[in-house]
């Protein structure tokens, strides 16, 4: 990685080039040799569904049904390719944009909208899916991932000799997050404890408006060398390469060889969130360049040229996407906030005198209005 900047496309691991042609790579080919065309179609389907959901969510926000939406547009390959390299007991610590990962892990995307609608702060059961809740404080989940990974190791789930049984942790974060103290401390703790964790950086080239060059002069994967662990850069718009690299990294971690950093260079095709206006800080020619490298189109071209994407399959996926969007729309619109005193629940796991007192006051206070209503 010597001498290149953090946005350089040089030397990325790549198994499909941006025109959808297969590129050979002696190191990583073995990690995708098991993939069938069915698998690749499944990748394509997951990416396509994720995007359909994502576009629907943005329009739901525009219609006032969501407080905020954080699109993953353009990052589907990075998310789908890596998530498919995990399975239980692996545990995932996402940031807040990993909708594609959630989808692969079996979380119904329609069900995650409560947090974006302002009814709750997280939506799925982390234990059931092996996916921790989203963390909005940049980088704060990185040390959690490391502690969890250490504990997996103590629990005998790492380097057992039975590779099918072993697990590891994946921690997703963005290019901006690499500057945070917490992320750097997580690297230090992981390295020194040989924790089975894969740090997966989605370098989508922006932290809101700031280009990655404001966080680093060198590729972000290089942070790994600072603590003496392996770091790999991969073309984040190549779902096959991402999958290969993540499989390698997971096997490394699961077998007890310690942590790994993966940097997937991708591009945030949409706004940072629905509150953002990227026209203020980037050019349309830049956007066009990356539109031409759309990760979904790339796999689609590959499959189409191999005559492996039949029209009826495509039509079915399109229909599934519409159905997911419809279900999402309906579940969002239908979802009402719980009763107001719900906000007092789960502050503590055991009764806390102050919460009890305030809740009792609040209920009396609310009731006093009801009394007034009745009195009228």
């Amino acid at each position, binding site marked *: 990685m010597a001498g290149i900047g953090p946005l350089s496309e040089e030397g990325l691991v790549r198994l499909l080039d941006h025109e959808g042609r297969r590129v050979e790579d002696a190191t990583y080919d073995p990690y995708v040799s098991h993939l069938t065309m069915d698998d690749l179609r499944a990748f394509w389907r997951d990416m396509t569904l994720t995007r359909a959901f994502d576009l629907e969510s943005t329009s739901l926000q525009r219609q006032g049904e969501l407080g*905020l939406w954080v699109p993953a547009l353009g990052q589907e390959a990075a998310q789908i390719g890596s998530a498919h390299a995990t399975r239980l007991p692996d545990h995932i610590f996402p940031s807040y944009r990993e909708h594609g990962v959630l989808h692969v892990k079996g979380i119904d995307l329609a069900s995650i909208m409560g947090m974006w609608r*302002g009814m*709750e702060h997280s939506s799925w059961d982390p234990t059931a899916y092996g996916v921790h809740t989203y963390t909005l404080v940049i980088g704060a989940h990185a040390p959690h991932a490391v502690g969890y990974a250490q504990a997996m190791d103590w629990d005998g789930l790492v380097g057992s000799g039975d590779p099918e049984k072993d697990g590891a942790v994946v921690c997703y974060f963005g290019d*901006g997050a690499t500057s945070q*103290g917490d992320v750097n401390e997580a690297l230090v703790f992981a390295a020194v404890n040989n924790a089975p964790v894969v740090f997966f950086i989605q370098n989508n080239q922006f932290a809101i*408006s700031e280009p990655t060059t404001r966080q680093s002069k060198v590729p972000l994967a290089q942070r790994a060398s600072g603590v003496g662990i392996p770091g790999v850069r991969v073309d984040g718009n190549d779902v096959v390469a991402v999958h290969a690299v993540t499989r390698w990294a997971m096997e490394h971690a699961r077998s007890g060889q310690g942590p790994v950093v993966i940097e997937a260079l991708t591009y945030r095709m949409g706004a940072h969130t629905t509150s953002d206006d990227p026209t203020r800080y980037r050019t349309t020619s830049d956007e066009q360049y990356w539109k031409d490298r759309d990760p979904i189109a790339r796999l689609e071209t590959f499959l189409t040229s191999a005559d492996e994407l039949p029209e009826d399959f495509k039509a079915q996926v399109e229909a599934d996407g519409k159905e997911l969007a419809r279900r999402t729309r309906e579940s969002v619109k239908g979802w009402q906030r719980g009763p107001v005193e719900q906000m007092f629940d789960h502050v503590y796991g055991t009764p806390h005198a102050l919460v009890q007192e305030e809740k009792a006051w609040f209920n009396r*206070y609310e009731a006093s209005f009801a009394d007034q209503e009745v009195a009228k």
Partner: protein
Amino acid sequence: MTAEAPAAVRSMNLGGAINAGLRAAMERDPKVLLMGEDIGQLGGVFRVTDGLWKDFGDHRVIDTPLAESGIVGTAIGMALRGYTPVVEIQFDGFIFPAFNQITTQLAKLHYRTKGKLSVPVVIRVPFAGGIGAVEHHSESIEALFAHTAGLRVVSPATPQDAYDMIQQAIASPDPVLFLEPKARYWDKGEVDTARVGTQLEAVGGAQAATAEMSRARVAREGKDVTLLAYGPSVRLCLQSAELAAADSVSAEVIDLRSVSPFDMETVLASVKKTGRAVVVHEAPVAFGTGGELAARIGEKAFFHLHAPVMRVGGFHMPYPGSKFEHDYLPSVDRILDAVDRVMAH
């Protein structure tokens, strides 16, 4: 008295007034610079620094790496070389990575060095709730900083104060936590843009400015009960006072403006007059700034009080989902309920 020269009065919203105040401070003093996440080309997520990067350039409007401790920490280093960095923390809930730098370094360096060093860093924080945001974007953090000596903590409630106080904060030799009531960024008002400049350019301007920034303002006069608030809650108290008046209760509203220090002189004068006080803030009541006010009013005006000092604020819970914030936040109804309770005595 002869007629004064016509003041340069302009209509602005509160966010725009801060923007104009920052611009005036940067024009006045070339050592003033801005730093933070996305404050440059983007102009900040609330556009409070809009246009400043274009006009002052990369060196004075600095987009930093995404690391709040590093931002405050490097700002301290710049201040040690005579610069006056004005740091933006993007949202209240993201100030905590910088807590160590603020609490153990920024607040204490002047004391630590017996005055040999000064670190006049201003930390601007869009704070408090009411904008329907996701978690961590609605926190009221003032009590967590007011407890630490060495920091000044202020919050403007009007465009005029926003314009004046940001410049006074920048001129102050002390570090200042400048809390911007983000739900009020769009509140409009008339702003006299001339006065604060005159103050700052006079001899001893920085001292006078710091003193003025630390004084409370009687936002509405009244005689039965004193409503005490700052930042986002001032408007709410004024609305409540209006409604109370319809009920023949005359409420005085004090806009505290400064939390550290509180202007107890103004507070006590009012409470001694009315004999009743209600403190309103968005932060959780428990261990909040209202406790300090209630305790001090108790200490200093006990025998003037007809009723206990009441507090209206957030509950002891994390800021809930935005669909609940209407119920969580102090409201006119809750304030009037407290007014009723103190008026019962």
